[in-house]
């Protein structure tokens, strides 16, 4: 045996008996997988975001670029497969005084049981234009291959415009719709907020709650701009009836909608001030996943950090676990039945394995999908299908 080998054995032996700190950063190891039969590719050029409705058997995809003003809505059969019929091409209506300016969809989500699609839209305006009449929330009823606008609200000076990112979410009981991009001036200082609309039994925004003044009643105490940075926060996960978790500046934030004393609690994680903060909840376990990137570009050379954090009825609890993966900028998607957390990447989808408790396992799989950056993807627990928007039929 050579001296080097003997020395290597000694070093390993020493390592084994040395009780130091556990490795906090979980390193992922590549696992090869031949096929991913649960992936359903959807042809949707310039896709940005996606929502799926199991109840209405629909998938909605938003677009950027020349298609930014429209949403594509695909029909699913009873197994969750694409029906193959032509998608509905929903062109966002141009209404009111700002009709000549370009409007575009920021966030989409479905009602959990009704065939309603909620769209949070924004508008590009010249600096001196008044956005006060622009309606940010549009609600469409999808039936018989058509999308009918049934409500438009959320207008006034309390809403900021011209954003790149804006997620919306409906809570489990479909009583609230959470939205981003509120603003208020206080002592000439710009304060950013989030809010919610109360929804009625029919899924529409209750009239009183639909006024701009009432939006702020719900979140007046969010006047802390560190919590909510426009274009950087990444969504809401309504994990409990009265407590939701949203992506804050330095980690997830729990928002208690009832108990004012503990209304906001931010779990601040080092390293801070990351961009592209995105969050997702496990569909059945009390676990959330949040990712942070160092840069906003798709070709970012730095890894994104992904943390796993438990919650108890919406309140963040225990210590966190973290790992990292290169490339993706899209929000995490949790495949509960498959025990995976998925991220879109360039021409591929990354799958980080999780165990039965939702903890990360040191495994990563990569499925080749299309050739461009995958940002729009969504999973159906009921159908066990991961829908992925791709540029071309490949």
């Amino acid at each position: 045996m050579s001296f080097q080998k003997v020395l290597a054995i000694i070093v390993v032996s020493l390592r084994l008996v040395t009780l130091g700190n556990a490795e906090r950063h979980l390193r992922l190891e590549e696992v090869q997988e031949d096929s991913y039969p649960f992936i359903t590719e959807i042809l949707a050029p310039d896709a940005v975001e996606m929502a799926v409705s199991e109840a209405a058997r629909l998938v909605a995809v938003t677009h950027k670029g020349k298609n930014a003003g429209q949403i594509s809505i695909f029909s699913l059969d009873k197994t969750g497969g694409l029906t193959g019929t032509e998608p509905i091409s929903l062109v966002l209506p141009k209404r009111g005084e700002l009709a000549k300016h370009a409007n575009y969809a920021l966030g989409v989500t479905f009602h959990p049981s009704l065939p309603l699609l909620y769209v949070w839209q924004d508008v590009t305006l010249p600096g001196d234009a008044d956005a006060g009449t622009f309606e940010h929330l549009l609600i469409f009823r999808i039936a018989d291959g058509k999308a009918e606008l049934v409500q438009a609200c959320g207008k006034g000076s309390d809403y900021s415009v011209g954003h790149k990112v804006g997620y919306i979410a409906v809570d489990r009981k479909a009583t609230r719709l959470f939205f981003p991009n509120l603003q208020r001036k206080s002592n000439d200082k710009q304060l950013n907020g989030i809010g919610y609309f109360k929804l009625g039994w029919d899924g529409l925004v209750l009239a009183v709650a639909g006024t701009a003044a009432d939006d702020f009643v719900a979140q007046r105490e969010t006047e802390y701009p560190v919590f909510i940075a426009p274009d950087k926060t990444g969504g809401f996960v309504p994990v409990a009836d009265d407590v939701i978790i949203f992506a804050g500046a330095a980690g997830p934030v729990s928002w208690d909608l009832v108990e004012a004393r503990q209304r906001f609690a931010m779990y601040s994680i080092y390293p801070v001030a990351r961009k592209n903060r995105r969050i997702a909840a496990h569909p059945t376990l009390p676990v959330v996943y949040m990712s942070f990137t160092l840069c906003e570009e798709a070709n970012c050379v730095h890894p994104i950090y992904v943390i796993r954090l438990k919650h108890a009825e919406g309140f963040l609890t225990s210590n966190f676990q973290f790992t990292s993966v290169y490339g993706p900028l899209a929000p995490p998607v949790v495949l509960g039945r498959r025990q995976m957390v998925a991220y879109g990447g360039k021409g591929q989808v990354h799958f980080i394995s999780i165990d039965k408790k939702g903890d990360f396992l040191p495994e990563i799989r990569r499925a080749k999908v299309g050739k461009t950056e995958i940002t729009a993807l969504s999973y159906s627990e009921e159908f066990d299908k991961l829908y992925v928007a791709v540029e071309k039929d490949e």
Partner: protein
Amino acid sequence: MKQHRLILILVFTLLASSVLSGRTFELTDENCVRIAVIASDAPRLSWAGLHGRSGYTTNVLALYNTDSRKTAFLIAFPLDHIPDDKRITSATLSMYCVLWGQDKPRVEVRRIIGDWGDGVCHLYRRTHPEKVKWTKPGATGIGTDRARRATGLVQLSEELGEFSLNVTEDVELWYWRGVPNNGWIVTLETKGEARFYSPTHEPGTWKLDVTYEPR
């Protein structure tokens, strides 16, 4: 060749001595799963770290003992690293203080008696998978939630930085006498406020150093 042999002998000697004569290892907050900050004015939060204008953040671990707010830090280091049949010769708990209020407060450390876990907060010692209350809110039940006798007191002094406490007796109790290791509750014994590095934001600053030797 002679040189190689000498190096090997030296390494083997070091290895053998460390195994035979006992060892010291360090655990930090990064090794802990059970860890929390509970506060009387945030009855359901597991992480009521620093109270600000809009709520709580964990970028600083702030302990308060005021009329309106009483805070406690809970931490349980896993001791399953220690091999069987050893004798604990010393154990030291360290923390890093970054600020205190007008009066230099005294930090009290006690063993926690009740089993606690996910969802721990001022009202409950766990809320998942089911809710279990502390015998008194804030784990203040003496002899039921926390030990009758304090493990020790740390008087914060003029100089900020790391403070340590001898916790050998507690670690020995958990390791050798089979008492369940539910960690410690850290509070301010005197009125005031003190701030420490936070385990989520500045991890690795709450430390437990343990030395053991063959029994």
